[in-house]
């Protein structure tokens, strides 16, 4: 559904250089530190920046010349941009109805009310969480085939976050839909994504299925003597700790079977971030 091939974008002290693909029917996550290039990747997909090299394809078309009709098939949440604050939801409803043929006014308004969003209040007076909820509801309001969600859960409390994630799971019940979602909160991505890209300094440093991350990866906590005896064939990274060594492996089962005395924690996105991003 979306394909980025060797996309390059050079800023003064930052260079995005990445390739990634979002297949149909899948939720793809993108994780990385602040300034790693997540938002730049989203902007490249949406044609908000001009890329210096490579190609962006959406629905098989060149992303740079995407028609308005194709844009109707996309729902977007941007981390740092949203509706003009001097208008209300009530003001925006006819605009959205004119822009999207599958937009349902009644459903959108009732969803906004259900989420506690005041219809007649200026959006500039909304809290960060309310603004975010409005963007998500807008992205979900017009039967889009693709959702591009840059930090959609930032600023939301845990209850609303769960509610939003549930809405995204409901959205995915219709076949042939896809989501690309970025978040700082790894548990959000673990719960919803089929595969995860990790980006650092503009480059993709890891791409793995979420099931593999959670099932095969693990953190071995070994004392110094255990570490010396450990078969290090499947150790990807190890670093010293107070008690001995922390070792990250992608063959957790091998160590569980052969070293029953060693403590092994399950894999997680936090673990992957520690492995790939910790210098």
């Amino acid at each position: 559904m979306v394909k980025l091939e060797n996309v390059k974008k050079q800023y003064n002290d930052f260079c995005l250089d990445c390739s990634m693909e979002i297949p149909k029917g899948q939720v793809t996550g993108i994780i990385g530190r602040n300034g790693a290039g997540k938002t730049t990747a989203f902007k490249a997909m949406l044609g908000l920046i001009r890329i210096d090299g490579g190609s962006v394809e959406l629905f098989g078309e060149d992303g740079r010349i995407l028609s308005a009709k194709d844009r109707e098939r996309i729902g977007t949440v941007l981390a740092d941009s949203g509706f003009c604050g001097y208008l209300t939801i009530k003001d925006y409803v006819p605009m959205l109805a004119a822009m999207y043929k599958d937009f349902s006014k009644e459903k959108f308004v009732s969803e906004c009310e259900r989420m506690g969003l005041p219809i007649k209040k200026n959006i500039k007076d909304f809290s960060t969480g309310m603004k975010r909820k409005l963007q998500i509801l807008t992205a979900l309001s017009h039967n889009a085939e693709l959702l591009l969600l840059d930090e959609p859960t930032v600023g939301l409390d845990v209850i609303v976050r769960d509610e939003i994630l549930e809405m995204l799971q409901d959205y995915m019940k219709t076949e042939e839909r896809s989501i690309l979602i970025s978040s700082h909160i790894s548990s959000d991505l673990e719960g919803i994504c089929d595969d995860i890209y990790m980006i650092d300094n503009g480059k993709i440093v890891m791409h793995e299925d979420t099931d593999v991350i959670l099932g095969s990866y693990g953190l071995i906590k070994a004392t110094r003597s255990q570490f010396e005896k450990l078969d290090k064939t499947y150790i990807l990274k190890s670093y010293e700790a107070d008690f001995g060594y922390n070792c990250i492996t992608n063959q957790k089962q091998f160590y569980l079977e052969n070293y029953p005395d060693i403590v092994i924690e399950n894999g997680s996105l936090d673990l992957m971030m520690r492995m790939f991003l910790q210098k």
Partner: protein
Amino acid sequence: MKGLLIKDFNLLKKRGIFLLVFIVGYTVYQLGTFNMEWAVGFGTLMIAMFSLTTITYDEYENGMPFLLTLPIRRNDYVREKYVFGFLITTVTWILLVAACFLFDIMIWRKDGGDFGVKLVICAAYLVFVYFLISLQIPLKLKFAERSGIVTTIVVVIIGVFCSIVYIEFEYGVNFLELGLDWNAVAAGAIVVLLALMLVFYRWAVRIMEKREF
């Protein structure tokens, strides 16, 4: 484009209401001083300025990137700004001209008077406002808040040029002695203005297409 027009009309309804009240008040004041042409010109100019501030509202809190993820293309955005600007200035102009002329007929003279000359002056104001909108849209997209300074510089340059020409022709007296076909001059001026407006529109589209968000 329809969606963007709805948004801008809603902005006009919410943010421009005080301006509309001001325009009505100012027009009534000017009518009291027998200055209907200026009332029409000023009101039209004010509403044109408002149409340009919708770009500022779109940019408010970095709103433009999100706007451009909606099903519109960048040239649609530019086209909508021109359509909105021309539309509200034309409607305002028609309403002001109708109101002022009615006032003129019913209160001042009741004989029709020199309506032709007055209408030409009002039309000249409208053409000037169209020109200003055409120039200001690309400047606003290119320079944002600094567009006012750039416009002032452009207007001062044009003003100085016109003053030099005017003085050169002994304060306009020699213009009449040139024996020009003034209808042809007016037609030529309109053609030049239209060409300039087209150039400004293309420039605005180019600025928008090159902009990164």
